[in-house]
């Protein structure tokens, strides 16, 4: 649990630190606001639960910065609904995060570009063995 949290923090730091050099110099993707903070906090606390499903391949990362149930068979029947809920909540937060970063930059219209940049970085920073979508197909890292 502690390791997961540390990993998540490291992931977030790397993610945010690496984004400004991606040719998106005008957007401050490290920008903070009360809304962004609370969204990040929720995502961080959820990550420790999601990591189990990233590891098992049940959940994968999509190109558009979302997560998706990839293989429900990797989860017991009783937990499949819970995984759906986690994925749904995570995607709501991710959508809100991209929107809030765009708003905090006073450029709501940047949301889709911010989303795709984040999507690319989430995949680059994913652990070995996790699944991600590339060209519409699932690939294991």
């Amino acid at each position, binding site marked *: 649990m502690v390791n997961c949290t540390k990993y998540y923090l490291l992931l977030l730091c790397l993610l945010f630190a690496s984004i400004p050099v991606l040719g998106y110099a005008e957007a401050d993707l490290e*920008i*903070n*606001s*009360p*809304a962004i903070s*609370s*969204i990040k906090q*929720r995502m961080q606390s959820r990550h420790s639960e999601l990591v189990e499903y990233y590891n098992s391949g049940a959940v994968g990362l999509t190109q558009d910065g979302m997560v998706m*149930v990839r*293989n*429900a*068979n*990797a*989860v017991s*029947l*009783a937990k*499949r*609904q819970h995984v*759906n*809920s986690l994925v*749904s*909540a995570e995607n*709501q*937060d991710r959508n*809100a995060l991209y*929107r*809030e970063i765009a*708003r*905090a930059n006073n450029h709501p219209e940047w949301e889709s570009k911010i989303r795709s940049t984040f999507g690319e970085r989430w995949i680059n920073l994913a652990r070995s063995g996790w699944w991600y979508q590339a060209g519409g197909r699932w690939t294991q890292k």
Partner: protein
Amino acid sequence: MSQCSISSLRKGPITVISLILITCALMLCASAAFPRLALIFDDIKHPAFEVKSVLSRFVSGGDKAGEIEIVIGELKVQDYVWKNIRLSCGTFQYGRTAMQCEDGYVRIPEFIAFPVAFHVFFDAQTLTIKGFPAKNESWEVALQWNNISWQGVVTIHDISLDSIAKWLPDQEKVPMPGDGRVSGNVSFSGNGADLRTAAMDLSIEKLAFSDRGGLHAGDNISLLLKGGINRAPHQSRWHWHSDVYWQQGEVFWQPIYMAGSDHYLNLQGIFDGETIRLMESAVKLNGLGVFDFSGILDLSSKQLSTLELKADGVRLSALYEQLLQPFLRNTAFAEIQLTGDVDWLVRVEDGVVQSLQIDFDEVSIVDARNRFAFYRINAHIPWLFEGATVADISFLSGHVLSIPLGEVRVPLELNQFDIFLPQVTLPVLDGHLKLENFGAKYTEDGWRWKFNGGLTPISMEALTNVLQTQPMHGTLSGYIPEVNFDGNTVSVNGVLQLSVFDGSIVMHNLKLIEPMGLAPHLMADIAMRNLDLELLTGTFSFGKVEGRVDIDVQNLELANWVPVHFDAHLFSSSGSYSRRISQAAIENISALGGKGAVAAIQRSILRFFEEFRYAEIGWRCKLRLNICYMGGIDAEPESRYTLIQGGGVPAITVIGYNREVGWQELISRLQRITSENEPIIQ
């Protein structure tokens, strides 16, 4: 003899078996003359099946016995094709009255390979076929016929469903059985070529199934299946009924998960070849309730032409947890607690809901995130696809965004997807929120609504108490112009006027984006005029200030109810009024400005006077990226700025030097000041 056998068997129901028996009969007719015989059929076509390249070999062993082998090159039944089907019998016995094989074998490469046995008694007109697919597994088909009628029973003993899966087409989204065993029997009877009755009594144990993605799957399921179908002579209508008893198991059918025992499904009705009529059918979900339904399924269009669903006394908590919640994930009702019961009656015609009636009985809805709650809701909601109705809805109490609401009862006018409420008065604390011309409409983009109204005075003490914010004196009242919601944003078309602290507040350009979203954004321009400072500061532990102020807050933006941007300017109102400030208030104002602000006043002088006179108060704050860029009475560019300009005797002037303060630091200071009795002196 051979002609007799053929004609009798053609009336039977199992055409493939008939084919095999015909083949046997032909060979036996010829076997008297030829000890070895082979027959070849190139192509046999039937509306139900197609057979290609049938090779039959018979080797006579003498004394009405021999070996027989039939190889079917290809058998096609609808979309299913099996190749190289091999039927063999090492000791085939035959006579005038009987044929039998005790050690037969059937093999379809990659599908099945198991022993079979059959007996035909021509006098008794019976046929029995037995199969032994695996150890402890068996099935038996027993047929009996006469010149008028026939009947049969298929008896199944502990057959693995896994083996049945091999026969099903492998499709990605079709759940396939992966485990489970079935036992029981299926019986049927008929006259000539007509089936008259059929019945089944099957039990399935430890059933598991899944599609490839695991989105439709079940495990450890035990079921009892009973059913029957019958038709009166010379009638085309079938009466049918079936009962499914769910004894145990779990199912995930995206997005619903159900487990437990003692669920029950009863279906019955009439089938006339064109439609299936469901009559007085019901499903009982243990822990939820009983759901009755009936309807007509049109087979040509594969659509329900009519459907009626009825349920009484369904427990909403269980309904929400087991069925509704997965469908409400992206709505404001994603995480709620429900109590109470609901009844409903729904009528659907040609896929369109024609009428709906919902009754709530003592229902309470509480949002897990505490954004809203409504207690003891009782409602009668009738709705028609064509026509207007009036719903009667009441609740005893509730709150929205922490603002408590009192008892209310509303007659809601419903007209298709429009809702209208001419007027309703909601008790809010010690005042009332009056809503007029409330209209809501459901569109493809979700709900849209609008209203106007007013707020009769409510106590600020009570309001700030429930909002758990800084206590304030006075009352809040006002006029609410048209407020509308476009599916994403609540906007106020006009100015929102409120009365508070003996002054007025006018809000322009008020917008609330995603009010029930994860991060609501509120935007507004606010002009406050002539606020009574004594009322404003009276209940703060801030120190007494007499006077009046105007406050302009331009470009205000709150994200998740926390300010992220504004241009604020507080200044003394014009006019003649008492302008006094207490020693404690001066020290606290100085402290708000940070170290240095207090440098302009002499601590020794402060001790001599309780109150001072002032000419003007002024404070400015531009909030940008969590930093408050401060200023005073004038927009001076210098490093210092005047917060209080003295006037009269004794006079005091407070100068601020700190231009930039972190917003959180400023708030913390304010909270410390107002929560402690003693003022902060730095």
